[in-house]
């Protein structure tokens, strides 16, 4: 139903745009924007199970509000909000906040585009393309971006470039931000990125995100240098994720249906592809603010920037004036709504925000924190560096530091929330309970079957999970045993270490070790110390690598390892394929096709194939056989008989036959020693079945003559057979004469 609606609207917008085009050809198409109201990541779980990320309040306003406000101020005339997870909530919000119904000059038309099966930004853009609503250049942005930059310059640059070079399809906005040397992440908690930019044209030549510590070196292709004698390598830039795109970008996503991630796939794909020659340019933001809230740390950082008014006019007292509740800026960056009930003995520190209808009791201390609307805070509460959303009840004597507390959470007296915690909606924390650092608590259980790939993990969680009983089955997290406790029991657990109503989530996606990187809490001192040591250790090891000097030497050794690895992987796959064939799933021709396919995929020789297939056949015989040698011999004979055609397919030349013999030898020596006593018996059998020819056997024997004694074992064992072969050959010769 909703689907239909938005489609109708989209069509309307398109018609209007084309109508304009007819009236006045000189007028450029209206500036459009695609706003992704879904980040397709799980960084904000568990909160995002219940509410989409773009609607999470950032200093009292949902994030999407900042983005939409900015788009409108930047002159965007038509915005398409792509929503996926919790789409009804997003749409509801757009209606309620008055974005959806707007029209007329000077205001931005907002249309929701809904899809439920998109799992990535790539999918989202493909959906947008299918709708056919984008006609000209558009701004691509995600709904969690806060900015006040002027888009004019960047747009002008983009347009000018496009006139000269139609292949310049995208302009990325970047800004200066030097990541910490120790943690290798920016202030926003993003991983550092390495970019290579042409200093003249600002063309992006290389992009590497995700600090991959395994790659010590940044490798720039030599061809890039041939075309650009000068390039700037940047580690001190941050990607703002604000892109000005040409309409071609959408079709590129459609053409390359495997593009998922905007940067990892799309940008890298374009940079690597030199056939189409599409180019990406950068625009460095020199004044103005732009930041994307990608994780909890950036949530913290951007919140503070908003409070500090770096994002003006997107600041609490200006932006909230449309709302009914008005908050005022007091000295030291304290924002208070007019109807706050504040005890005279309570102390609000600098850079804090307190929402309307909130009451704060005696002797409370609120420092560097944001407190939402309708909260009840008891006496002697200490709140430091935290984000308390709406309608939260905090009883007397609680301590909350550097944590995120969602709507409707109830902290009972004396509860302590340690740094880095996230308490999702309506979680209750019992009396005197200590929530350990970096815990994530939700009323909803953690989805258990999570894919390890973060990109694909996204799941639509609208359906029915809320019904699941939150109290019955509690997942525990290692030694932090959480005990489900009913409310009346909470009172009695005086010394309880952890009495929380809700599920404590284990951190799967990032791993506990990395938790500190992206949490709200500051990086602990010990961690920094640790990193510093690691850094100096690194330098030590680097000395060694320097002494080894040339990196290409390392490469070659690596590639050897790779090579071995490569072949064993290939063998494994062949074996699996073969086993499927054994199971009867695949017929012989298809089997050959599949194996050939594998060979091409691994770019190996025919001989490698022969070895691998032989290995698989023998392995199957081994599996079929019982432990005794007699049956093994029999099953081997059966297997060879059955698959000799397959093997012959790969033994077209003597080299390949040799490969089989060598493989057999290797198996007997290393992997499957069961065959070793049978070697001399099986060898004539292979000869009889014409899997290997006498030429191959003789050559093999010849080659082995000069080998080590240990290598000669099998030649010696089958000496009689070889001798017979030789004699037979001579006889043949004689006969011919």
């Amino acid at each position, binding site marked *: 139903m909703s689907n239909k609606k938005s489609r109708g609207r989209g069509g309307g917008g398109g018609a209007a745009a084309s109508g304009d085009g007819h009236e006045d050809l000189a007028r450029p198409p209206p500036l459009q924007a695609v706003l992704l109201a879904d980040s397709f990541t799980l960084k904000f779980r568990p909160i995002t199970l219940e509410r989409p990320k773009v609607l999470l309040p950032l200093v009292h306003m949902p994030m999407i509000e900042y983005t939409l406000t900015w788009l409108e101020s930047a002159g965007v005339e038509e915005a398409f909000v792509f929503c996926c997870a919790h789409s009804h909530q997003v749409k509801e919000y757009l209606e309620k906040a008055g974005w959806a119904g707007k029209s007329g000059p000077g205001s931005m038309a907002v249309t929701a585009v809904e899809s439920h099966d998109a799992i990535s930004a790539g999918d989202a853009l493909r959906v947008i393309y299918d709708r056919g609503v984008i006609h000209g250049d558009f701004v691509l942005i995600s709904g969690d971006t806060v900015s006040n930059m002027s888009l004019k310059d960047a747009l002008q640059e983009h347009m000018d470039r496009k006139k000269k070079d139609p292949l310049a399809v995208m302009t990325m906005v970047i800004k200066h931000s*030097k*990541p*910490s*040397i*120790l*943690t*290798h992440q920016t*202030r926003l908690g993003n991983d*550092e990125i*390495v970019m*290579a930019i042409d*200093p003249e044209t600002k063309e992006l030549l290389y992009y590497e995100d995700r600090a991959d510590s395994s*790659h*010590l*070196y*940044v*490798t*720039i*292709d*030599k061809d890039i*240098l*041939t075309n650009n*004698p*000068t*390039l*700037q*390598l*940047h*580690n*001190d830039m941050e990607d703002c994720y604000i892109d000005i795109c040409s309409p071609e970008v959408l079709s590129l996503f459609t053409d390359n249906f495997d593009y998922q991630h905007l940067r990892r796939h799309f940008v890298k794909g374009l940079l690597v592809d030199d056939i189409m020659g599409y180019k990406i340019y950068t625009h460095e933001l020199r004044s103005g603010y732009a930041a994307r809230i990608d994780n909890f*740390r950036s949530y*913290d950082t951007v919140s*503070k*920037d908003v*409070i*500090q008014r*770096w994002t003006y006019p997107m600041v609490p007292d200006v932006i909230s004036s449309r709302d009914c509740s008005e908050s005022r800026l007091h000295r030291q*960056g304290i924002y208070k709504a007019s109807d706050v009930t504040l005890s005279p003995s309570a102390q609000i520190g*600098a*850079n804090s925000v307190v929402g309307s209808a909130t009451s704060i009791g005696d002797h409370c201390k609120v*420092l*560097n924190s944001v407190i939402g609307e309708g909260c009840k805070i008891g006496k002697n509460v200490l709140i*430091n*560096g935290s984000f308390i959303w709406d309608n939260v009840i905090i009883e007397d004597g609680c301590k909350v530091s*550097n944590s995120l507390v969602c709507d409707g959470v109830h902290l009972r007296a004396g509860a302590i929330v340690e740094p880095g915690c996230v308490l999702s909606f309506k979680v209750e924390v019992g009396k005197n309970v200590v929530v350990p650092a970096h815990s994530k608590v939700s009323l909803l259980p953690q989805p258990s079957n999570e894919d390890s790939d973060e990109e694909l993990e996204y799941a639509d969680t609208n359906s029915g999970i809320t019904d699941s009983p939150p109290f019955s089955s509690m997942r525990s997290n290692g030694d932090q045993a959480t005990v489900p406790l009913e409310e009346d029991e909470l009172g009695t657990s005086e010394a309880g270490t952890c009495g929380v109503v809700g599920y404590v989530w284990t951190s799967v996606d990032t791993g506990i070790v990395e938790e500190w990187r992206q949490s709200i809490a*500051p*990086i602990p*001192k010990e961690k*920094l110390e640790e990193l*510093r040591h690691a*850094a*100096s250790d*690194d*330098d030590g090891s*680097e000395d060694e690598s*320097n002494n080894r*000097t*040339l*990196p*290409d030497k390392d490469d070659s050794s690596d590639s050897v390892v790779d090579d071995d690895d490569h072949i064993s992987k290939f063998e494994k796959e062949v074996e699996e394929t073969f086993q499927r064939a054994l199971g009867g799933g695949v017929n012989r021709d298809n089997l050959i096709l599949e194996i050939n396919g594998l060979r091409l995929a691994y770019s190996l020789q025919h001989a490698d194939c022969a070895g691998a297939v032989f290995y698989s056949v023998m392995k199957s015989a081994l599996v079929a056989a019982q432990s005794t040698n007699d049956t093994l011999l029999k099953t081997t004979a059966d297997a060879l008989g059955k698959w000799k055609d397959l093997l012959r397919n790969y033994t077209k030349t003597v080299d390949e036959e040799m490969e089989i013999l060598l493989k057999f030898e290797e198996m007997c020596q290393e992997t499957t020693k069961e065959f070793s006593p049978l070697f001399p018996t099986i060898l004539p059998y292979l000869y009889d079945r014409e899997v290997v020819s006498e030429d191959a056997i003789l050559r093999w024997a010849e080659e082995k003559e000069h080998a080590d004694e240990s290598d000669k074992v099998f030649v010696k064992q089958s000496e009689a057979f070889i001798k017979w072969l030789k004699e037979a050959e001579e006889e043949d010769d004689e006969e011919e004469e």
Partner: protein
Amino acid sequence: MDFQVVVLAGGTSDSEKLCPLVSKDVPKALLPVANRPVLSYALDLLEASDLKDLIVVVEGQEAAQLVDAWVSSAYLDRLRVEVVVVSEDLGSAGALRAISKRLTANDILVVSGDLVTDVLPGAVAATHRRNGAAVTALLCSVPVSGPSDTASSSGKDKAKKPTRLNIVGLDKSKQFLLHIVSGTDVEKDVQVHKRKIQAVGQMEIRSDLMDAHLYAFKRTILQDVLEQKEAYRSIRLEVLPYLVRSQLRSAPSGGSGTAVDETGSSAVQSSGNLQCLSQHRVIAPSAFKQDGGGHRCCAYIATKSKYCHRLNSIQSYCDINRDVIGEASHLSGYSFSAQNNIIHPSSVLGSKTTIGPHCILAEGSQLGDKCSVKRSVIGRHCRIGSNVKIVNSVVMNHVVIEDGCHIQGSVVCNNVQLQERAVLKDCQVGAGYIVTGGSEHKAESLARKYSEL
């Protein structure tokens, strides 16, 4: 200035690339460029920078005697030159190592004797001092080589990519050398250590600069390296890259000091101290510049308008000769006539013989009738017959060219005899060779030892 200058003048055998131009009688340092030994260009330049204490290192006894004789006559009372003999095939680093004990000044300027440039070594030395660097290397634009007409030098052929000689990484201020690739590695993919980029934040990678083989070293560091790394033979390929690499290593000692400050303050910031918001905070200077213990490698980048070539191949020999009498004529030290050429008054020209612009005709040379010389250098006491055409060529001293010869794009060494109607195109003729009459040679290297076989 407390600088000691070492001029690496090479020898006779060092450069196979220059065969057959270099011979026993003419070591590399004395190869004439516009009728002056190439070494004189470096020495004049040093004199202009008031760097007058020189050690000229020559490979081989005989070559050293020749160089010594020339230097002591030409630079008598002008420079204090000590010519030092080292054995052959030591490489540039080996030669330095051999004379290491003679080095006493705080800083050492190492100049290759085959450098023809108008970049003042004094400027490089001053930069070196100002930065307190361990090493400062002169980098200049890669020359566009190849025989090009004078017209094409202004309208450069865009399709032609200059050969890549070095890949260098510079910091933001373009003063510090962070990365250098030379030798055969330049044709590979560029690999830059991440830690380097992390430390500086931003690095400029350039492939259009070349190492001009003029370095200022801090003596102690140079001697340490030469002592510790006995296998190093080349300054350009080994010593300099080693120093550039190892500046990273010394970073932690001093670098951690700055790192403490930086992260310490960032910890304070994120702990909620909003008063020092870091959106626009001044980025702490990179560890490189702050560290006290480590050394720094600096670069002096010559502007594009400067001339900077090394004479290390036949091609470059031709190019330099052409340039010195052509577009870079200020280097030659001669004053050109209104026709843009130099004709020594003692030379004799036949009737209807024309000497075009960008030519030098040295003393005592005679030309017959109806000759034409274009963009060429002709040495002393040459005897040239009639109807001879010489284009884009270098003719050294005492050469005899008989009637009707054509010489184009070639180098003709001392005492060569070209018999009648010999035609040379893009050839090199070794000293004393006799080119038989009427023969035609194209892109050949003619030397006496071949003719004797």
